[in-house]
């Protein structure tokens, strides 16, 4: 649908231009196409309208206008999401936060920063660095992703093993509820009275409202950081070393693994110079008080050797440390060098079944002829299999899709999750019923109904079948009314 075919949207565009200024509203088809996808480019939808508010008043105006016109809206930060969470609606408004980029306050004394949602993750760390602080959650996209997007996705990163995820670092938000009400939850102090709705907002993927301000914890820079890179013959050994280190009571700041194919890709892209012949590389970083780090570092080294590491490198300085990380951080993009197309998968398994699951993935790969490169947060059991294919080869894309889905099934079978950090978005809504029962999903949607009875905030994401908010809980049996009406399907 284009705006000309929808009078409600034409009226909306005029109304929003009047409220936010002419350059804050985009309805030109060519310019709208800039926003047709997020980091998951296989789904593309041109939004009917894009608004770029510069403050919370602008967001309220946009949301309220949508509420009154019954038009769906989707929030978008930097558009780096990998699950199609910011995929626009053809009949809806995309609210982009890129102008909401003020760092409102760095309060090092209280270990908090207050920022607008469009602020880039790494910019918080840059701003806090002068006081010896940083913002801990560090997705690989931290150079470009927004804190609003991080809140919506509950993003993680290499250092989340020790420091926790976005949800452990956000102490307050201001957001615009789908009816246009501005709500504040939490702040610089912990435990605001009432239900922990902050905990619900984080990770809700834009389905509960638009976040307009975020208060985050700042973490003291550690006294010492030591990084080690170990080359192993294969993932079994590296996985065993991972388990041994954690089993010994060491909690590294980060613990990242790459398999042979991922190493090959990284070498092709950035020449990271990882150990020759390594079938797996493990990067372990420890941080904290110097004496603690020294002693534990020796333990980590010992465990790596005991589990077959044939080469261990210890970063002598920051430059060398950065070179260890360069290969790992470039791995997603790097697979583009060894395969024309690929799917970035994101699943989680309990750490202890790492070897078993990696074997099964290798088997799947052999059975189907689809190559899978593995790059992952080993300490968290968060896998990122990169499923490689060539769209030009007939049938290969479909087979890759199947392998990708089979990997998620493996994660579920082993008691894991279909997503550890990239979110459900549009991409994985159909997998939710494999992990959760109807009752589980229905219960989650009670929350959605409390925030958004009209179902206008990012509809179609996360849940395969939206709940009708008016219905009496627990009274529907059999097919969902939306299914009966032919409006939605359970996959």
């Amino acid at each position, binding site marked *: 649908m284009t705006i000309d075919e929808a009078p409600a949207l034409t009226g909306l565009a005029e109304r929003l231009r009047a409220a936010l200024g002419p350059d804050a509203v985009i309805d030109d088809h060519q310019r709208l196409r800039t926003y047709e996808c997020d980091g998951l480019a296989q789904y593309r939808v041109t939004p009917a309208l894009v608004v770029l508010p510069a403050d919370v008043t602008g967001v309220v105006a946009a949301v309220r206008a949508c509420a009154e016109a019954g038009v769906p809206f989707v929030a978008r930060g930097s558009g780096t999401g990998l699950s199609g969470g910011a995929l626009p609606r053809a009949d809806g408004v995309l609210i982009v936060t890129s102008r909401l980029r003020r760092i409102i306050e760095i309060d090092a004394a209280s270990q908090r920063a207050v920022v607008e949602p469009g602020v880039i993750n790494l910019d918080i760390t840059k701003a806090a660095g002068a006081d010896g602080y940083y913002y801990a959650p560090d997705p690989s996209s931290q150079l470009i992703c927004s804190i609003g997007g991080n809140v919506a996705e509950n993003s993680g990163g290499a250092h989340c093993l020790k420091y926790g995820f976005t949800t452990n670092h956000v102490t307050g938000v201001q957001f615009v509820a789908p009816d246009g009400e501005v709500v504040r939850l939490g702040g610089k102090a912990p435990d605001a*009275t*009432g239900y922990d709705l902050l905990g619900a907002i984080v990770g809700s993927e834009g389905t509960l409202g638009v976040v307009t301000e975020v208060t985050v914890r700042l973490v003291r820079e550690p006294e010492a950081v030591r990084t080690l890179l170990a080359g192993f013959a294969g993932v079994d050994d590296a996985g065993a070393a991972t388990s041994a280190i954690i089993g010994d009571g060491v909690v590294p700041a980060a613990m990242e693994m790459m398999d042979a194919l991922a190493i090959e890709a990284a070498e092709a892209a950035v020449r990271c110079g990882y150990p020759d012949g390594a079938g797996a590389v493990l990067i372990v970083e420890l941080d904290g008080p110097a004496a603690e780090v020294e002693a534990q570092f020796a333990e980590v080294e010992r465990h790596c050797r005991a589990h077959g590491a044939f080469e261990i490198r210890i970063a002598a300085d920051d430059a060398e440390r950065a070179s260890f990380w360069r290969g790992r951080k470039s791995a997603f993009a790097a697979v583009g060098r060894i395969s024309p197309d690929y799917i970035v998968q994101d699943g989680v398994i309990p750490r202890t079944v790492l070897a078993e699951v990696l074997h099964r993935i290798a088997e799947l790969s052999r059975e189907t002829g689809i190559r899978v490169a593995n790059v992952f947060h080993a300490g968290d059991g968060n896998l990122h299999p990169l499923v490689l294919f060539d769209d030009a080869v007939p049938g290969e894309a479909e087979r890759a899709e199947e392998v990708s889905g089979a990997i998620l099934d493996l994660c579920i079978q082993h008691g894991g*999750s279909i997503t550890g950090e990239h979110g459900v978005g549009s991409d994985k809504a159909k997998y939710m019923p494999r992990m959760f029962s109807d009752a*589980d999903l229905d219960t989650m949607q009670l929350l959605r109904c409390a925030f958004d009875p009209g179902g206008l905030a990012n509809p179609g994401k996360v849940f395969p079948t939206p709940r009708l908010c008016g219905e009496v809980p627990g009274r529907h049996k059999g097919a969902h009314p939306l299914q009966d009406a032919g409006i939605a399907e359970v996959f």
Partner: protein
Amino acid sequence: MRAAGEEVLDELSATAAARPAGEDDHVDGVPARVVAEPSTTDEAAAVLRIAAARGLAVVPRGTGTKLSWGHPPERVDIVLDTGRMNRVIEHRAGDLVVHVQAGVRLDALQEHLAAARQRLAISPVRPPGAGPGTVGGVVATGATGPLRLSHGAVRDLLIGVTMVRADGTVAKAGGKVVKNVAGYDLGKVLTGAWGTLGLVTEAVFRLHPLPPAARWVTVPVTSADDAHDKVQRVVHSSVMANALELDRAGDGSAALAVLVEGIPQGVDDRVRTLLGLLGDAGDTGEVGDAEVTDVPPGWWGHAPWERGGVALRLTHEIARLPRLLDAVDDAGPRCGLTAAVRGSPGVGVLHAGLPADPGAVSAFVTLLREASPAWGGDIVVLDAPPAVKAGLDVWGPVRGLSLMRRVKDQFDPDHRMAPGRFAGGI
């Protein structure tokens, strides 16, 4: 009425253990009709379905150590006691994860985990004279203790939850892996919800290794500013204190104790750094005013109120601690009472104990609430005798209340789960 009670009892008994309620089963003075004691999630669901069909109000109960916290319920038909739901379902030591039933007692759980050199990093702060409570009670109240500084709050350690809704529907959220963003984080919403959104029947927690060494450094504190200065020195250092607790008795004498845990070499080193930071130089043992011990000071982990007294929770921005302490010092004499304060100023959560004088407490809480913008936190009266609660808004003002009411209406449309216990009359 009596006959109806018997009928309910018969029906309940067919699905779970049940008995008529006695005087010990009153919830904060409100009498109950029956006590149901399910031993599984399914039995608990059956109990809640019966309650739904008959429109009965249900109040969950663990060991009952905090049933007098919050508002008394508007009514209690069924006390749902989790005492028989006391199984550790699965402890995956290699994954540092444990799955338990809600009625598992925290002390029993810690003992179980210690055998594998692990712990649930929730510290055992206890109300005076009370036992350690159940896992369900810990989740439902979201209470925090000293270890929160280094390990986060209950909400941060809970990774999966199974609940029974008011209508008897069983639902779970989260899972058994630490990293998981599939769906809404209902565990957080249930944490600190005081049983008003549903019954928590099972919980999955992330665990931590038991540290091989622990040492406490305790120093006296002379004033609010001195306390603040010392807290700031510790939190802004790279010593990574595992816990930092302030204790101020009613008479004004005060101490700050810092816990460091880890491997022995590291702990020694950090203790030395701490002694330097806190104004003392030297190695170990008693140096100047600082005391280094390998057991906690006697007050550590104990609530700062007397039995039958009034319990407050005071939250604050870390850097505005002196404003809060000054307000306490100012309001006390004006209301004719003295407040004992204890808690975690590095986290921003303190607790205070007051004598049970209704007029004085009400005046004190009012003064403190008026001044609270100066330190940016909330004041909640956790526990108090009925006469004191009667003259108080125990929860105080709540941001986002209309949204919270809508959440309650969705989860419990008939308002039968612990009705009236929570903020805003929820």
